[in-house]
């Protein structure tokens, strides 16, 4: 258990050391002039308010949806659940582009419906676009927590005279806390790191400033400083999350095993609930699908194009799949250490995992270039190093759901197994693992989908000539060849949707 966790921790430290090395290369006067200026402050304020806006909107989208999917008798729950997760697979700039192409003189609304609306941009444009494809992080976390919620708690509360609202506030909400916090954390960190959407929406945030330093200044020093400031911001958020989570107990303590979840009958509310789910899903999937469809019709791909889509797909999967499995293994051991083992370093490793997620991908990639060439040159530009980079970058995604689930599993389950003579490892796999299997699978799926569309790490670290789907999309859109990019983008979305469908039906068979 300790070995994969420490490896992951060390992996995350590598880019930190690199950034510090680069940052302190510069002379202090230049640094002071670059860093301590009003613009840095503006960027910080913009970034923080953007993060807050996205957290609020995603909560409105994800939490009611998760409750409906787990605790109501709404029809087509399976399908809605699948569709609700699919937006994770959609590349951010496709979402932003879809929103932008709705408005304006040439926009969809003007051309088709004759309604002239300005194109979304700025703060609200960025909040909308980011929320539309990050809300599944919160949805998956809350859903996993609701599935693991012990109904006997609610029954006891009801017997003590708690009504619907009081029950939600004092029983359900506290139990959802780890999941909400984990989901918010991942979304906040995602927003901190995203630059594609904020750039298209013309909103100036921190990550974009960092990206620009690499892109226009060829300047690794100032970029390193900005990255360090961003990491400090991340540390602040991670620490706050840790404090809020605290060391509460979320697992059942009584004897006996958990029963099936309570289901609320919606009755006359069902159409309203369907309308709500449909709105969320149509906005998140319908819009990008419309844009991709439009591009496809503009220039229908020929047989050669489909061949190269297939080839790129196989390559993408050959790195994304091992990365997802390795990340899940590491996440399990990190989450286990953080929740079960009372070692001083165990919480630290978990916190480090979140830093890995928050390091700007270009900085992370350059750090791995720097260290691999100096210490393990035979690993440089191999898929192995790329997979390692994915693990460092996405570990935090898989930890959230697993940690929430582990907190809900009583430790005595495993203690009982050990008292029956099982060795610790076996005890974990026979007693605890079956209970946390669902979030482990969900975490694996999450990482797989994100790795399928990952761009900056891939094109800086992959073997030369190893073009994944995302690289192929990028090299076309960057030349304004949107129609040529469409089949590759579509392949990412379709594959991920299929995969989510398979996973959710597997979960249902439990």
């Amino acid at each position, binding site marked *: 258990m300790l070995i994969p966790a420490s490896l992951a921790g060390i992996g995350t430290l590598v880019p930190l050391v690199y950034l510090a090395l680069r940052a302190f290369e510069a002379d202090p006067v230049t640094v002071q002039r*670059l860093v301590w*200026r009003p*613009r840095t402050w503006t960027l910080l304020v913009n970034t923080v308010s953007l993060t807050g806006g996205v957290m609020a909107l995603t909560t409105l989208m994800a939490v009611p949806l998760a409750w409906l999917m787990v605790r109501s008798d709404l029809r087509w729950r399976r399908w809605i659940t699948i569709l609700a997760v699919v937006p994770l697979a959609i590349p951010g700039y496709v979402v932003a582009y879809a929103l932008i192409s709705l*408005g*304006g*003189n*040439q*926009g969809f609304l003007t051309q088709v419906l004759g309604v002239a609306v*300005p*194109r979304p941009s700025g703060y609200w444009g960025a909040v909308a676009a980011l929320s539309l494809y990050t809300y599944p992080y919160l949805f998956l976390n809350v859903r996993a927590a609701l599935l693991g919620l012990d109904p006997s708690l609610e029954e006891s509360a009801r017997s003590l005279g708690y009504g619907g609202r009081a029950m939600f506030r004092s029983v359900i909400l506290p139990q959802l806390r780890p999941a909400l916090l984990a989901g918010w954390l991942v979304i906040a960190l995602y927003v901190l790191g995203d630059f594609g959407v904020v*750039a*298209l929406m*013309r909103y100036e945030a921190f990550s974009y*400033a960092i990206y*620009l330093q*690499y*892109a*226009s*200044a*060829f*300047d*690794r020093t100032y970029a390193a400083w900005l990255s360090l400031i961003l990491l400090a911001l991340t540390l602040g958020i991670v620490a706050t999350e840790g404090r809020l989570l605290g060391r509460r107990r979320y697992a059942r303590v009584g004897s006996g095993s958990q029963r099936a979840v309570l289901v609320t009958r919606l009755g006359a509310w069902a159409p309203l609930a369907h309308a709500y789910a449909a709105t969320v899903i149509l906005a998140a999937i319908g819009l990008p699908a419309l844009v991709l469809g439009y591009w496809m019709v*503009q220039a229908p791909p020929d047989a050669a194009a489909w061949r190269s889509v297939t080839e790129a797909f196989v390559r993408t999967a*050959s*790195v994304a*799949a*091992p990365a997802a*499995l*390795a990340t899940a*293994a590491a996440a399990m051991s990190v989450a286990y250490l953080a929740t079960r083992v009372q070692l001083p370093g165990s919480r630290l490793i978990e916190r480090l995992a979140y830093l890995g997620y928050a390091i700007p991908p*270009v900085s992370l990639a*350059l750090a791995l*270039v*720097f260290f691999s*060439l100096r210490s393990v*040159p*035979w690993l*440089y*530009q*191999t*898929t*192995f*190093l790329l*997979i390692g980079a994915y693990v460092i970058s996405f570990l935090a995604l898989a930890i959230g759901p697993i940690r929430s689930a582990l907190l809900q599993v009583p430790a005595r389950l495993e203690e009982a197994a050990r008292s029956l003579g099982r060795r610790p490892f076996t005890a974990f796999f026979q007693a605890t693992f079956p209970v946390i299997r669902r979030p482990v699978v969900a975490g694996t799926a999450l990482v797989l989908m994100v790795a399928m569309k990952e761009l*900056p790490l891939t*094109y*800086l670290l992959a*073997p*030369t*000539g190893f*073009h994944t789907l995302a*690289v*192929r999309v990028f*090299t*076309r859109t*960057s*030349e*304004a*060849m949107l*129609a040529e990019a469409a089949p590759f983008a579509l392949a990412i979305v379709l594959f991920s949707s299929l995969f989510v469908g398979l996973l959710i039906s597997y979960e249902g068979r439990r």
Partner: protein
Amino acid sequence: MPLLRRPLALAIALAIALTGLAAAQSLTVYAGRGEALVQPLVDRFTAETGIGVAVRYGGTAELAVLILEEGRASPADVFWGQDAGALGALSLAGRLRALPDALTAGLPGIYASRGGLWVATSGRARVLAFSPERVDPTAWPASVFDLTAPAYRGRVGWAPTNGSFQAFVTAMRVVHGAPVTESWLRGMIANDVQAYRNNTSLVEAIAAGEIDYALTNNYYLLRYLENDPSFPVAQGFFADGDIGNLVNVAGGGIVITSRNVDAAERFLAFLLSSEAQAYFTDAVFEYPVVAGVTPNARLVGFDALLAASPDVDLDVLEDLDGTLELLREVGLL
């Protein structure tokens, strides 16, 4: 965890296999140009010479930074970017080796690099794109400096983070001096200029009705017009010699640590062949850099381009640092 170990082992095996594959290639190119544009040309090179080429595609700037970070261990033989600034940054850092004279001889003055460390492979011009519906052609601005006038308030777009825009600002600093450039930048900001991410967004913003003018590169609009001749945007030059008509280049150089110098030189020579040059202008709407290749009919003629372009040495575009400092000073970066 045998279940988890197997894919890892598979990944290692795959990684080793792919590394072996990469070693079999004889030339490695880092290309900051779009794959859809470049790969057909690379395939032609391989067909004609039998030299295998592995191409790493990415952003021009990130790939230049990657070569800086790789240092002596860089596997790259050729760097091929789409901005003189990136090529200049690599030259200044000593990451490019001198090219043979044969490669650079006979190119027009606007495409020459004095240092001889890199060579232009195609040219593109800065233009003023506009909306024919909302712009009166009789009131055409003679100079980019006119855009600070009240008539243009809130109507002009630019992309201050874009490499081509920054190269243009660098040229303005060199030709007109830093104080003039700074007051122009501040005047534009005071005139409510709209900032966009890149040239494509600018062209689309005019079509969408958000802005009426944009400072952009010449070939983006031509691609839109190729797909949709009724696309409601047009473009033109400022008066001849105005700094707003700067000509920039895409170009390539040989990385100093290359162990395939012969193949790398042949690759650059191929990019300058009339076959490749015709491709750049016919398919990509850029200007050819060698004489004897007819520019695309959609482009303004080569003589008109030479007349319109200001007299600026491309080597001065290396001085990006001063421009970035200025852009930071006025709050654009």
